[in-house]
């Protein structure tokens, strides 16, 4: 049945996220935006199981659905997008451990991720010269002669939480000549010798989240820390991104909601000053367009998530949800700037922050251009 209604468990998980977001997180959001990594907020969310929304309760997760996941991400992003992206990446790494990891790997890496023993998880795919074309990555994993250890060498870039993560999921080539099929996935302990954190990027938004480059200089990784068999790393990465795209769509819409709410509040305040902006048609039309695109985008995010819950293929729907939601958020946060008062245009105002935070959603976890390539490929495949 087509109901568009979250079930009771999904509402419960949304409620957990909402109460934490509107409570403790709201008090710290401005500090996070000023650049303070949200350690306390992340640990607080972990205390409610929100670092592993889809992971089993027995391991410290919430055993929720993909719909519950996007509901929760949206709630957190509406209050603090920096915390939301940190939470999203940790959840994504956990999901991959859940889907591809052995019981021993889950015990060693997933449980601490969920309980907050690890501050975060990181996902290392992109490199200085391999972004959208992920299969062209250059990081190598060379197996030792005795077959017990890989040595990882290379540099990863734009890695969210790379400096605070307790586990880093690294994609590297085990067969340099096999293209995408030569990529394998590894669970790397950041305490390993040869691992180092490079530059902390100065970003226009998501200032509370950490974005770093990582260097692997012959980092030894035991074979038991390889996730899945050799050669399926690209598949793991693409699976992660299909789910991740719903999360980023939800994050973008949380940011957009914060922006729209701030504009409505600002307009209402000015209306009380007798300037009647709220009744101005030019303003009203923009509000209508913002609300309509957000609603359509949200339905797309929910659809992709619900299809994933039903075990259906949803690459096309996830790509549509990501490109539509993140571009809607771009439109909403930009339009909000146009409706804002002068005070709202401060970089640290809710509208200013949302404008800065929304931009990267069209870039990370697959740019808008890559989403369109995915959609077109799926269309041609189906035609």
């Amino acid at each position, binding site marked *: *049945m*087509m*109901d*568009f*209604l*979250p*079930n009771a468990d*999904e509402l419960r998980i949304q409620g957990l996220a909402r109460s934490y977001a509107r409570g403790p997180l709201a008090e710290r959001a401005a500090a996070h935006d000023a650049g303070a990594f949200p350690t306390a907020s992340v640990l607080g969310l972990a205390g409610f199981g929100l670092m592993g929304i889809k992971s089993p309760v027995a391991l410290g997760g919430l055993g929720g*659905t993909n*719909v519950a996941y996007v509901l929760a991400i949206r709630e957190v992003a509406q209050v603090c997008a920096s915390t939301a992206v940190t939470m999203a990446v940790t959840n994504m790494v956990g999901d991959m451990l859940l889907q591809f990891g052995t019981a021993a790997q889950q015990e060693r890496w997933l449980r601490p991720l969920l309980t907050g023993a690890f501050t975060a998880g990181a996902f290392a795919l992109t490199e200085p010269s391999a972004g959208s074309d992920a299969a062209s990555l250059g990081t190598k994993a060379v197996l030792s002669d005795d077959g017990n250890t890989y040595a990882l060498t290379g540099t990863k870039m734009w890695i969210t939480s790379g400096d605070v993560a307790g586990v880093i999921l690294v994609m590297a080539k085990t067969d340099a000549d096999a293209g995408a099929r030569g990529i394998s996935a590894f669970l790397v302990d950041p305490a390993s010798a040869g691992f180092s954190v490079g530059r902390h990027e100065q970003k226009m938004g998501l200032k509370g989240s950490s974005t770093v480059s990582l260097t692997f200089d012959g980092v030894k990784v035991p074979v038991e820390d390889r996730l899945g068999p050799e050669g399926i790393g690209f598949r793991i990465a693409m699976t992660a991104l299909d789910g991740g795209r719903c999360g980023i769509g939800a994050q973008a819409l949380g940011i957009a909601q914060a922006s*729209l*709410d701030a504009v*409505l*509040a600002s307009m*209402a305040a000015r209306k009380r000053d007798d300037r009647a902006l*709220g009744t101005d*048609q030019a303003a*009203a*039309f923009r*509000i*209508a*367009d913002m*609300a*309509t*695109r957000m*609603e*359509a*985008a949200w*339905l*797309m995010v*929910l*659809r992709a*998530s*619900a*299809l994933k*819950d*039903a075990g259906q293929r949803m690459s096309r*729907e996830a790509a*549509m949800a990501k*490109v*539509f939601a993140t571009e809607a958020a771009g439109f909403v946060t930009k339009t909000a700037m146009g409706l804002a008062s002068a005070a709202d245009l401060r970089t640290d105002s809710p509208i200013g922050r949302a404008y800065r935070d929304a931009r990267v959603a069209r870039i990370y976890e697959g740019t808008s*251009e890559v*989403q*369109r*390539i995915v*959609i*077109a490929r799926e*269309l*041609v495949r189906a*035609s």
Partner: protein
Amino acid sequence: MEFALTEIQQMVLETARSFADNELLPNAAATDKTGTFPAAAVKTLAELGFLGVAVDEKWGGAGFDNLSYAIAMEEISRGCASTGVIMSVNNSLVCDPIKKFGDDFQKKRWLTPLAQGRRLGCFALSEPGSGSDAAGMRTTAILDGDDYVINGTKNWITSGKEADVCILIAHSDPSERHRGISAFIVDRQESPYGIGKVEDKLGIKGSSTTSLVFDNVRVPAVNRLGAEGMGFKVAMSTLDGGRIGIAAQALGIARIAFEEALAYSRERSAFGKIIGDFGAIREMLADMATEIDAARLLIWRAAVGKDRGENFGKHSAMAKLYASEMSARVCHKALQIHGGYGYVKEYNAERHVRDARITEIYEGTSEIQRLVIARATQVAFDTSQS
């Protein structure tokens, strides 16, 4: 959250799609060219139950839900936009208000034959001098004994020529604005009214669009739909539902435009490869498909809201606004992908552009939808703050 159609909804989809593929698509270009009312198609719609999709079986309808109606409207309009609007008006603007506001006498006498397709309906609200400002209408209905006497002219009436049951909105108390308006079921056999100018339109040429002329037309008082003074509410509530139908019509037009453009892009070559393998074309196709899906979700959300008895006005306004403007964008791009062939009648791309355009105007212009949405968004925000 579930995202799956029920067996009945799936059956409605398949029935409508196969009818569209077999009967509507092959005739749509000719219907447009000759401007002929698609009588055979309308007859089949009746046999399929598609003229009263969401009307109870008790009253002669198919007894399906509003989501089924939206699904059927999309598929039928994909086959033929003119047939789509005739179906939409009969379902949303005629059956629906009788179902919601009519008494049993009225249902038995008009709803059943309308839902069965033995009669055809039209809806008369707009006038030469009043469109978006519906309360500014001039047509009067003055009680005289057991009859109302109707005087005035209604404009842009879809199916005006063929319809023989008319939902008429008129001033029963001209001294009042909204509160002086009442709704009537005018039976053309019982109360003959005049058919004025038959419009020559840009698109949806198979449906007739006429003015209706009421010159001392007497309508029995028992034909009044709802209480006196409730007519404006009847009209607005009817249009809330109608917007789902028109949004689905716009979506169906976009669907066929997109499908033809995709197929063309796989056949046509340029610079040594098929144009569908160029990034520029693929980006257009990806955006078209994405917007089509977004519109469908808004429409389904509104229909499900209506089925659940929610206040669905905001959702249907969003669906109508987005789907109609989406349809214009998609049809524009579909024509562009066809190049010169898009501009000539050998292909259908130019017809889709013409057919889509009206969906941004009738049953509430995009501008009216935006006002409705802005107001609802403001109210929702104020409620959340208090």
